Every structure is written in C-alpha cells, then in structure tokens.
C-alpha cells in the first residue's frame, strides 16, 4: 500500500478532527436532547472522513478500494444516525426503539455486504477504476443498481430528518429566526454536497458530503452548546406554550389568530389548535361577544374578567399587550389569561366570613374594642360606643382607654395591662369601673388578649361586658351576708348569755334541792322527799334543754369548734354508757356494748362531742324502746373510718319521716307527752356534730321493728 498525502487534504483532515472532537464533546454532554445520536453521527462522519482521506491518499486501486469500502460503513450509517437525532431532537424519541432501529439498519447492512462482495456481482459498482486528475489518483467508479437503492434510501432518511427538523424550526419564536435559517442551511449542506457529487453536477471527483456533515455538525453543535438553543427551542413552544396553565393567544394586526395554546382553547372550550390558526379571534370567542367588543381596540390591559353565569362562571386574569416591530408599527397582540376562579372563590369566601364575623362583632351586645400598643382605641363596636354615651365610633377612635377609667383606679388598671404586656399573658380578666359621658359610673368585666403581629405585640383586644347590675347585686348580697352573719353571731351571743343566765339560777335550784334531798337541812318526810325529787328531775330536764339550745345555736351559726386530742374509743363508750344500763334495767331492756378489737386503741378527735353523740343516740334509743334491747357496736369497716352503731327494737321510724328526723325541733310525734319530752334538738345536734367531724350518719329503720343509727367517723 502506498500513499500520497497532499496539502489539499488538510481541510478534510481538519473536518475529520472537528467531527471527532464534536463526537467526544457531544458524548460528554449527552444529557442534552438528541446528543447521543448526534455523537454517534459525528463518530460515523469522523470515520467516513478519515477513511476518505486515506482513500484519496492511496496511490493504487486496491488501497483506494480498501479505504473506500471501509468508508461506506460511515456513509451508510450516517443517515440512520441523522434520522434518529432528528426524531429525538423533535420530541419523537419514543418512535426510535430497538426494532425500528434494526429495520432502518437492514438496508445499510445489505449495502455493506454488497460492497464487500462487489467483485462477485458488480451490483454496487459495475466498474472500478483509477483515474488521474491534476496529478492525483482518483477512484472513478461507475455506480451499479444497488448504489442507487442505497442513495435513494439515504436521501429518504436524510429528507425525513430534514423535514422533521424544519417543521420544528418553523415553530420557533420570531427572534430566533436568524439562527433558524442558519441551522437550516447547516442541515441542508451535506444533502446538497452529496447530490452535487453523486449526480456530478459540478465536475469534481472529491465527494463533499462528509464536508457537508461537518458543516452541519459545527452549526448544530454551536447552537446546541453555545446558545443552548437546541435544549429548549424545539420544545419551547410545545412545552412552554402548550404546557403552561395560562392561556395564550397571539393575534396579528387584523385580529386573526397567529398562535393559540391548549390552555387557551380549553378555557374557551375548544380543541385542536391547528384549525384555529388564521381565524378571526371574534369567531372563536363568539360565546363572549361583549368581551371581544370591550377589548377590540385595547392595546394594553391587565384585568380580572368574569365569564359565564352560575356554576359554570369562571374568573380570568386577562393581560393584553401589543407587539410592535422595529418601526413601532403594530404587528399583533398577545393575550394571556389565567384562570383565577379558585382564588376568586376563596377570596369571596374570606370576604363572606369576614362579613359574618364583622356582623357578629358589630351586633354583639358585648363590648368589643381594640387599642394599639400605646392604649389608643383603634376599634370599638357599636355596643362600646353606645355604652360610653357616644354616637359614632369615630368619636372614640384615637382616644386613650385610660381616659374612660375611673380616675382613682387608672394607675392600677394601667399597671394591670402593663404587666400583661410585659409577662405576655395571653388573656386576663379584670373588673373595674369606667365613666361614660355625663359622669355615669359603669362597671366592666373584661377579658383582654394581646394582639400579635408575628412575634410582636401590637395592641390589645378587649371583650367586655357591663356588670354594673351584677356588681350592685353582689354588693347587696355581700352586705346581706355580713348582716346575716352579724345577726347570727348576735343570736349566738344572746343564746350564750341567756343560757348562762339560766344556768346560774338553775345551779341554785339544783343545789338546794339536792342538799334537801340529802337531808342536809334536816330529815325530810317521804312526801317532801318526793317533791324534792320532782324539783330535781325538772331541773335536770331544764338544764338539758339549755344545753341543747346552746349547742344548736352554736352549730347553726358555725361557731362550734372541735377540740381534738387522742382518746380511747373503748373508754369513751364505757364512760358515756355508764349509768345507761341502770336506766335500761329499770325499763326491763337488754343493754349491751361491744367494741371490736380492730378499732384503734387511740383515735384523734373531739371526745367530748363524740360522747355527746353517743349519749344522744343511746338516750333516744332507751327513751323510745319499750321492750327488747338496745345495743351499741363499735367497729372498723375499713382502714379510713370507724363506726358507732346504735340498734334498738323500738317503735321504728316511718320512711316518710326518716328524712326529716335530723331537722331541728322535730319529733316524730309533735304532741308533747311525758314520754317524748325534749326540745327535739338531739338528732339535729348529733347530725351537725357528725358533719362537723367530716363523718356520716345513716338511719335504717322499720316501723314496729326498730331503728339503727350508724355514725361513721374518719380516722385521721
């Protein structure tokens, strides 16, 4: 093999170098749309050009044929790569799948096979020969039938790619038209070069097709990587314009549609953008003639327009601007429309709810007002205006809230709200008097909340109510309570005094009667003894009554106190029932006491009062029991309490009377007889004492069978 390289091959070498570099560079940037097939195409062109250089440099037929055949790998595959690039670049990538690619490659593969085996059949070249021109050896082959199949196939693929690209380019925005024509030129170049060579239109023997592809490559690569044009341009309209949610219509000077996107059509209720291009805009907007009429001669607008009625009503943000050319003459208008129905609905909801709340606030009988951070009134509802004796809210606005507060307590009120502000207490409630016009004193009870703007407190909001009447009623009640307490105390003091004054003479009567009874003043006759006994019994009764009255008085006036100490329940029961058994025996009753060992030996409490309770209950039981028994049982039902249970077999208490039995001055039988003598305070006192001890008294009774009084007392 011998070669003859000449300077005239340098441009071809440079083209090959450039193609190779572009292949590498594009491959590195293959995330760009169409970059992968583009890189492959450049690699094929590179191979084509390199082989072509060696073919040209070859000085004998076999050498030239070897490189020529090798070159055809690039020649046959380049149109396929070109088509793949064109399709991918114009968003038809999905079309290029493995099956279709394989189908597309059938013809190129066959071509290569025919070329390799051309010596056997001459289908590709009918004659292979060398010729010389200007001192160069050149291949001068005569193309066979398959060559033309190959040529037709290649042209077809290149043409399809070209059409696809041109169609995409035509949709580019106007400002890119310059680049567009340039790119168009770039893509057409190899096609033209090839036609020139194949059909020998110009008498040169060097194939310029590969050069043509290099020009294409430079043009496209420049656009692709320098302007990044190829990244967006072909999809700019489709994706940006059709993809945008805003409707867009471009009109020419005669109000005909130049472009319209999906969103615009959808808003109008149409589809298929192509068929509306060139039509008057009034035609497609015939539904809304008033809109067309209104904007007929408007050059610039930014409006919110409403179309339709009822449930299909929609709101659009319409913006209209006019396009001018370099000579400032109008060439058309751009209309964009944004569907703002949802926003409008939300807005109207907000307005509605605002109106609703305003209505509530304005019509509230409660006083609602706001003050700024300095205390100046910024809002007052009609109730506030009315209460303070004004007519319009305006008269109050700007006034200081403290000016309405009673002068004597201004400082205190101011301090209260200053503290709320400083401590950032969210809500406070305060009551204080304010002065309305005319000096009328009005009491307010008001909740005050801090108003925030972000982190910062910008004022106070008050929700208040006039409480003058309540305040007065409360004062009256307080006075009445104090008076009642006073009266009660006076009553207690009186009773105390009375009982003291009664007891002193009783002391004289009882003392002398007893001394007489003991014959301290000489022996008494039997009759005299009996009379003295009667006196003593009466004194005893009277003395009991005085005690009970005093107890009751103390308990009802809450002046009774407990004297607590440790005591033995066993001793207490023994002491308080000593003597009771004598009384029981006298009446023929069985009498027993039982203290359960579980009851603590020492309990903390008022033993005097507990003794009084036991004496009362046992005394009652003995008094009202004619036959049978009276039993006292002391137990401990649980950890926290102990229990004194007095059971008798007396007459019992009817259900209807059970509830009233603990009321003062109550006895079952209101008739005063010897049998039920007593003021009827015993059980009332007992119950009140038990209550005072945080205990509980329970009555179980059945008429004719007997009664059980159970006193439960806490163990502390």
């Amino acid at each position, binding site marked *: 093999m011998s070669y003859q390289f000449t300077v005239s091959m340098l441009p071809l070498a440079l083209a090959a170098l450039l193609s190779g570099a572009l292949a590498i560079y594009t491959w590195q940037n293959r995330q760009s749309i169409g970059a992968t097939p583009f890189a492959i195409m450049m690699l094929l062109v590179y191979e084509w050009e390199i082989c072509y250089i060696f073919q040209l440099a070859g000085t004998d037929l076999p050498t030239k044929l070897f490189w020529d055949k090798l070159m055809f790998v690039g020649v046959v595959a380049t149109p396929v790569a070109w088509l793949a690039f064109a399709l991918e670049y114009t968003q038809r990538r999905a079309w290029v799948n493995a099956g279709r690619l394989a189908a597309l490659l059938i013809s190129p593969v066959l071509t290569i096979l025919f070329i390799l085996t051309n010596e056997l059949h001459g289908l590709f070249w009918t004659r292979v020969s060398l010729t010389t021109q200007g001192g160069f050896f050149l291949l001068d082959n005569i193309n066979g039938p398959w060559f033309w199949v190959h040529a037709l196939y290649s042209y077809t693929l290149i043409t399809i790619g070209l059409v696809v690209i041109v169609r995409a380019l035509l949709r580019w925005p106007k400002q890119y038209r310059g680049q567009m024509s340039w790119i168009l030129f770039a893509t057409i170049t190899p096609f033209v070069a090839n036609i020139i060579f194949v059909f020998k239109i110009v008498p040169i023997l060097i194939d310029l097709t590969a050069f043509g592809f290099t020009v294409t490559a430079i043009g496209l690569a420049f656009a692709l990587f320098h302007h990044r044009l190829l990244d967006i341009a072909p999809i700019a309209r489709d994706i940006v314009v059709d993809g945008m949610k805003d409707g867009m219509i471009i009109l020419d000077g005669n109000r005909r549609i130049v472009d319209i996107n999906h969103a615009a059509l959808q808003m109008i209720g149409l589809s298929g953008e192509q068929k509306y291009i060139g039509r008057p805009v009034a035609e497609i907007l015939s539904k809304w003639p008033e809109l067309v009429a209104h904007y007929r001669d408007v050059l610039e607008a930014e409006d919110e327009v409403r179309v339709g009625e009822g449930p299909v009503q929609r709101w659009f943000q319409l913006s209209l601007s006019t396009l001018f050319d370099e000579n400032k003459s109008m060439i058309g208008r751009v209309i964009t429309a944004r569907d703002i129905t949802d926003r409008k609905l939300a807005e109207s909801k907000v307005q509605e709810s605002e109106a609703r709340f305003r209505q509530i606030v304005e019509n509230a009988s409660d006083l609602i007002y706001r003050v700024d951070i300095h205390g100046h009134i910024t809002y007052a509802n009609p109730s506030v205006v009315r209460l303070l004796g004004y007519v319009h809210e305006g008269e109050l606005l700007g006034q200081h809230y403290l000016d309405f507060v009673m002068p004597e307590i201004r400082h205190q009120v101011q301090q209260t709200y200053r503290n709320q502000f400083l401590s950032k207490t969210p809500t406070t409630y305060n009551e204080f008097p304010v002065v309305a016009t005319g000096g009328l004193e009005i009491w307010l009870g008001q909740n005050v909340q801090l108003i925030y703007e972000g982190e910062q407190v910008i004022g106070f909001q008050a929700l208040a109510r006039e409480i003058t009447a309540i305040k007065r009623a409360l004062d009256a009640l307080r006075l009445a309570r104090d008076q009642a307490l006073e009266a009660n105390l006076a009553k207690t003091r009186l009773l105390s005094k009375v009982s003291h004054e009664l*007891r002193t003479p009783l002391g004289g009567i009882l003392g002398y009667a007893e001394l007489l009874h003991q014959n301290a003043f000489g022996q008494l006759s039997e009759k005299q003894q009996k009379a003295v006994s009667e006196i003593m019994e009466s004194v005893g009764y009277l003395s009991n009554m005085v005690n009970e009255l005093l107890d009751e008085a103390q308990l009802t006036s809450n002046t009774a*106190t407990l004297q607590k100490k440790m005591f033995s329940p066993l001793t207490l029961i023994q002491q308080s029932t000593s003597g009771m058994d004598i009384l029981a025996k006298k009446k023929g009753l069985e009498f027993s006491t039982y203290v359960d060992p579980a009851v603590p030996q020492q309990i903390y409490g008022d033993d005097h009062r507990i003794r009084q309770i036991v004496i009362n209950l046992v005394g009652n039981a003995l008094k009202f029991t004619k036959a049978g028994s009276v039993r006292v049982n002391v137990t401990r039902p649980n950890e926290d309490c102990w229990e004194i249970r007095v059971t008798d077999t007396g007459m019992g208490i009817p259900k209807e009377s059970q509830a009233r039995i603990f009321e003062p001055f109550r006895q079952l039988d209101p008739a005063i007889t010897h049998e039920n003598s007593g003021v009827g305070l015993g059980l009332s006192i007992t119950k009140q004492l038990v209550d005072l001890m945080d205990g509980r008294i329970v009555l179980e009774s059945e008429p004719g069978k007997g009664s059980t009084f159970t006193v439960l007392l806490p163990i502390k």
Partner: protein
Amino acid sequence: MPKPLAFIIEDDPKLSAIISITLDDDFELETCADGNTAMQRLETIVPKVVILDLNLPGLSGREILKHIRSCQRFAQTRVILTTADNRKADTLDNDADIVLLKPISPAQLRELALRISSMP
C-alpha cells in the same frame, strides 16, 4: 388527821353557800367572791382543792388558773373549774383537773372533790 383545805372562789353567793354546805363535812373551807381577793389569799394559803368559777369580778378564773398552774407551790393543788358556758368549758379542759358545767350537782361535786383530793 386535819381536813384538806378547799378554796371556793365563786361570786354567786347562793352557789357559794351550796358548795360550802356540800364540802363542809370533808374539807377545811376558805371562800372568796372575786378574783383579786382570791389572788391575795393564794399568796398565803396552799389549798388542796380549788373550786374555781370561770366568770369572776376582777381577775378572771382563767388568770387565777394560769397563776396556780405556774407556781411550784401549787403542784399538789387540784382545780375544779365551774362554768355556765360550755364553749369555755371545752377550751379549758386541758388546764383544769375537772371542768363542771353549771348547774352543778352537789352530790357529784362532793364525790369529785373527794376523789381528786386523795390523788397524790
């Protein structure tokens, strides 16, 4: 064996007489009708039992009781406090040996006086 001394401090002459008659058989008696005089007498005598009325003209029974309880001289002295006011009776429970609510039963008084005077 000499009879123990009972000091009766009672402003009601009737009650004073009743108590005197009641205790005459078993006690040596001293009587007094007001607080101030009682205090003076207590400077010279050391009674075994004091029957002390709470409500007295002059110094009150409460103050006399406090004085008795604060002097070592009266360590052996027992006090029976008498009162017509059961509330006061409650509060003095711990200071007096016995509190008797008026009206007082002479028999009960005699028994109690004898019992506490025999205590050490």
